[in-house]
């Protein structure tokens, strides 16, 4: 009984220690989801800022609103549009990494209930050390063009 209690406490302490890890040094902003019609998979985007002295690695994400969330990367090198699953996205020390259309993104699949434009969706980001960060993504219309993306598109 005592041994089991001790084991449980150790587990809780470890979980507590993990919570106070990489996630504490990362700030997430501009999270949004491109809402697609029907049950089609949606893209999720967010800007991550690392205030720490060493690089931090985003390794996974989950959301109560979707059964499956995967970290993906798109590319259009050589004129072919491709998408591949990636294991991690590194956020440099005192730097930024963006999940943005046409690059790294979350692929959100199998919505528990239809996600509507304007909804706030909770997305939990998980880092390589096991620590997690709860964020809120805003559901936006399918034909949204990212603010940052637009500035890249216009060459005046």
């Amino acid at each position, binding site marked *: 009984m005592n041994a089991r209690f001790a084991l449980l406490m150790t587990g809780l302490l470890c979980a507590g220690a993990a919570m106070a890890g990489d996630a504490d040094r990362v700030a997430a902003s501009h999270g949004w989801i491109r809402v697609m019609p029907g049950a089609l998979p949606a893209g999720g985007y967010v800007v991550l800022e690392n205030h720490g002295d060493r690089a931090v690695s985003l390794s996974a994400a989950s959301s109560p609103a979707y059964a499956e969330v995967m970290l993906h990367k798109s590319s259009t090198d050589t004129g072919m549009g491709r998408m591949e699953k990636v294991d991690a996205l590194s956020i440099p020390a005192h730097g930024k990494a963006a999940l943005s259309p046409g690059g790294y993104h979350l692929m959100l699949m199998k919505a528990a209930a239809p996600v509507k434009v304007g909804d706030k969706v909770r997305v939990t980001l998980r880092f390589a050390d096991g620590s997690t960060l709860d964020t809120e993504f805003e559901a936006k219309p399918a034909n949204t063009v990212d603010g940052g993306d637009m500035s890249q598109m*216009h060459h005046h």
Partner: protein
Amino acid sequence: MKPRRLVRALLLLSVLLGAFLLAGCQRGGELPWKLTNVSGHMPDLDFKLVDDHGKPVSGADYRGKVVLMYFGYTHCPDVCPLTLAQLHVVMQRLGPLADDARILFVSVDPARDTPEVMHAYVNAFDPRAVGLSGEPRALEALSKRYRSAYTREPDKGDGQYEVSHSSAIYLFDRDGKARLLSTAADAQDDLVHDLHLLLDTGAKP
């Protein structure tokens, strides 16, 4: 000696002037495109597919419209929506002129992209977008016709799969002639510029 020199100089001048005018004429005949000009290098718009209302359509049904053709699939969550969202912005920038243009979104995933799915998908982006699907063989023929390519990637185990596909946008004039090719590297301003040329003039040779 002197008058002969003058004659030679005048002759040279007229030859140069002629060459200059000729060059000017050649430039005038070709519109100042900013995108990649493929006029005469690609076949006219032609296909037999099904639109997003379930109606059989052919390339001839879009004569009179300037066509932007793009290959993709609805289960593509990132690049396809990004491209279609950007094309929607382009259409908005064209204003009322855009009513004479059509975005043809051609599926490279006929197994999943039924007319119903395509209808909901294209209308989430722009009212002037049309979703085309159809027989796998007909889609393959269209893709080959424009030297486009697509590959169905291996199943992820749960019936989910991705399709890698060419990301270029093909532009056709009102006569169904292939005119321009736009890639992800091109600036949106260039696309708007060239669409103005195609829509203003009809780009008749």
